């Protein structure tokens, strides 16, 4: 499978000493990468290592300052997305490029419609769409609107679109970030099919397990440079992590001394429609309560009820022995509950506003001086939090949208910490965050419980729930299926068994 050693035929794609600078930042310095025909190359690196810039350079969105890109041994200048497409490169971004109101077929043939005497030949398009989807092992109704498709189906439409435009190189950016385990398996089998047909894949992912499962070779970026490159069979997981973070990582989850206090939060019979059905549990001071379950099991919906983000049909929320009326997030916040949402970009932060403004938003009351906000006090508080949480920002006025996933999560955390919250609900806190920043988030969670805070931790990654929680609730179809009393000694199989039980 590894063809790069064959000197007779040049590799399909070669990127040599690519340099790209943005005002004030060197995003790529001397990145080198080769991709053989029919090869799956994993591209890994921490956030900010330069993966996105490299992908965009391939997609024709960024023109490198220097360096050379060779396709079939011939030098090319990818000066626009159109040129890139013509060279057979297709990029599938994390956020799909699909028109949500158009059908799968219309999206598939957008810009290259099959035209017969000036009219679109719907029948031919439909037939070809079915064939393409079939080829990928998925049965998608070509006439279904894209917004009604699942994430995995939308992804398939994107892949089919790449095939329809005769792509030879498909770049997938974090393709499994929003997929359930079954969907991931399906995607990997699609990738295997593509490889068999001689299509080369650049697979960008944080999930090392997947890389070992699917990739032939791996290229590691750090600080805009290629720091390692090897066939996956010859490189260990710890070696990979060391390349990525630049130092050996001790263990995946930091140690914690649990010290449980009295019950802080008690929910009774929490219900909303069919999404959440009669959930009961207690959360103690200094406790991390993990909430596990498959995607769609009602975990997020359940914690949104506690936070007042949605209205509950029935149920009681009792804090410190007293029942609280929570109708809006404002009520929850007043009672010391905060939610770190799964979707930081859409729900956690205002991306076009600065990190400091995001930080200050729920805490303005505390910075008031008479009728006005004391901007200096706000800036000082932000500066203190920035130091404590090691948030990497160029200044408080840097836009939240420009920060990496880990730093965005820290800004969200900082704004709640400033507000003296007692109960922190983390919904997928490490999704889309690189290994180094993940570890820091874990340390922060441990620090919070050490200070007597209580934590609800939702995570789809079983090792994370098991490694971080004191107790685990397992949900399915809106109900609690069971509780694992001592999370440290349980196994992934035990949690899964509960999640799948009838």
């Amino acid at each position, binding site marked *: 499978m590894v063809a790069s050693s064959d000197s007779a035929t040049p590799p399909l794609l070669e990127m040599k000493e690519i340099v790209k600078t943005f005002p004030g930042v060197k995003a790529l310095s001397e990145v080198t990468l080769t991709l053989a025909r029919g090869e799956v190359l994993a591209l890994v690196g921490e956030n900010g290592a330069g993966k996105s810039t490299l992908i965009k350079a391939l997609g024709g969105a960024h023109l490198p300052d220097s360096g050379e890109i060779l396709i079939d041994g011939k030098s090319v200048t990818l000066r626009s997305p159109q040129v890139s497409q013509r060279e057979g490169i297709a990029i599938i971004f994390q956020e799909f490029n699909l028109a949500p109101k158009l059908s799968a077929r219309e999206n598939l043939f957008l810009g290259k419609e099959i035209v017969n005497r000036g009219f679109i030949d719907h029948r031919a398009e439909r037939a070809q769409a079915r064939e393409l989807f079939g080829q990928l092992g998925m049965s998608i109704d070509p006439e279904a609107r894209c917004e009604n498709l699942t994430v995995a189906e939308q992804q398939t439409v994107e892949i089919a679109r790449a095939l329809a435009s005769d792509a030879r190189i498909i770049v997938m950016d974090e393709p499994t970030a929003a997929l359930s385990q079954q969907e991931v398996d399906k995607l990997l089998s699609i990738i295997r099919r593509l490889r068999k047909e001689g299509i080369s894949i650049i697979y960008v992912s944080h999930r090392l397990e997947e890389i070992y499962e699917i990739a032939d070779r791996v290229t590691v970026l750090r600080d805009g440079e290629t720091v390692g490159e090897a066939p996956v069979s010859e490189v260990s997981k710890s070696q990979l992590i060391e390349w990525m973070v630049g130092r050996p990582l001790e263990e995946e989850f930091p140690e914690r001394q649990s010290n449980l206090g009295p019950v802080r939060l008690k929910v009774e019979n929490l219900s909303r429609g069919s999404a959440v059905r009669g959930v009961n549990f207690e959360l103690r001071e200094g406790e991390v309560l993990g909430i596990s379950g498959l995607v769609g099991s009602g975990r997020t919906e359940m914690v949104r009820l506690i936070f007042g983000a949605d209205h509950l049909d029935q149920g009681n929320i009792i804090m410190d022995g007293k029942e609280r009326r929570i109708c809006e*997030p404002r009520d929850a916040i007043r009672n010391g509950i905060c939610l770190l949402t799964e979707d930081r970009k859409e*729900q*956690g932060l205002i991306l076009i506003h600065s990190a400091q403004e995001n930080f200050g938003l729920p805490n303005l009351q505390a910075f008031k001086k008479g009728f006005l906000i004391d901007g200096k006090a706000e800036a000082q508080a932000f500066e203190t939090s920035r130091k404590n949480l090691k948030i990497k920002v160029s200044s408080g006025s840097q836009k939240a949208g420009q920060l990496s996933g880990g730093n965005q999560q820290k800004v969200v955390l900082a704004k709640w910490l400033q507000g003296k919250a007692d109960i922190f609900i983390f919904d997928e806190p490490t999704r889309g965050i690189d290994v180094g920043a993940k570890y820091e988030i874990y340390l922060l969670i441990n620090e919070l419980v050490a200070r007597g805070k209580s934590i609800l931790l939702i995570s789809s990654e079983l090792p994370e729930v098991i490694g971080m929680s004191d107790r685990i609730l397992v949900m399915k179809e809106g109900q609690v299926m069971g509780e694992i009393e001592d999370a440290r000694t349980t196994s992934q199989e035990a949690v899964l068994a509960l999640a799948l039980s009838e």
Partner: protein
Amino acid sequence: MVVALLALCLLFSLLTLKRQPGIGPEAEAEMLGVVINLISENELALIVGAANTDSEALARNVHQMALDSSRESVRLIIGGPRDLRLALDAMAANGESLGGIVASGDVIKWRVIEQLPDNFPQFSGYELAVPSERLWPDFLKASNLLAIVERIVVIAIIAIGMTMVIITAGIDLSVGSLIALSAVLSATVVKKFGGVDAPAWSVGLGFLVGILSCGLIGLFAGSLVHRFKVAAFIVTLGIMMMARGMAFITTGGFSIDQVPNSFVWLAQGSILGIPNTILLLALIYGSAHVFMTHTRYGRYIYAVGGNAEAARLTGVPVGAVILLVYTISGLSAGLGGCLQASLVRAAAPNMANMYELYVIAAVVVGGTSLSGGSGRVFGTLIGAFIIAVIQNGMNLIGIQSYTQMFTLGGVIVLAVLLDKTRQSGGFRQLLAGK
């Protein structure tokens, strides 16, 4: 934006540069010199100014300065050629002797002065003095600058409310109609209390009724937008038509011009020599700026526009913010209506047609994004002035009104394009769609 405004001012200053009769302290000192040194104390010096022009101020000041220098034989004449003629007739009848006429450029062209030697042969050897001319643009005359402020004050004040609404990613199309409704309501109240003879308190009451009614209508629009999630465009489009209809119903389609002087004071009076319009603009813009940048609700307005869901999940009372901005928009439109009626000394149900579009243009030219979350109050003020300066400048250099409309539209498009270019760091980036 400030640069664009200054560039426009410079452009129109250059285009309207011409020789002007002198005004101001220098010209006044020069004329005083003539009165004191060249005209005998025993003869009468006439100081003439055309009413409501720069020469009136000049004449009044010179007259006062002459009296202050204890020169008694001066006479002030403010008005038109007829007033001067009558004064000369009176002098001839009383057998007074004319020592000289002091006037500015416009007056000297009056025929009564040209024909003076023929009509009044008894006056001879008198001085005829005008201040030396100076090179000065029409655009930068104090009277013209005040005219610009009067032209834009209504739009600029309403644009504050509009800025807040647009920062929440909304829009308020009803403000033009609310101007008319507020004007008509306040004038109707004043009419009920006696029209031209109405007491000052009734004028205050009328303005209050106009402003508060529009505030209530804004609150209504905000509650529809928030509670029923109807698009703001549609809600305010409907209210725009309803409010215009209400204005017509209130007066039965007629305009009301029986208003007392106290009614006109709001827009045409002055306090301590500063015109009320300028005072109002400074006061309202100053407080709006502080509100938007230094208060909790100001910050909430930006947050709701930046990402309403994230703001709600951060504890921002999104509903209250929406109600607040539409209410403020209504109130500012109400105030704008009172000002407009006061400026033109009448209230008509068809007034301020299309003003909502000028207001939105001012906000957008001022750099506020229609997609919400960003924008500055002072940017809007500059945007409003850019529009006013362009209109005024084109008037001064004599461009036809149809051409003016075309040009103004083009400038608005250009301004927004330039702003986008600046934000995305260059025209090529903008073209590339980033």
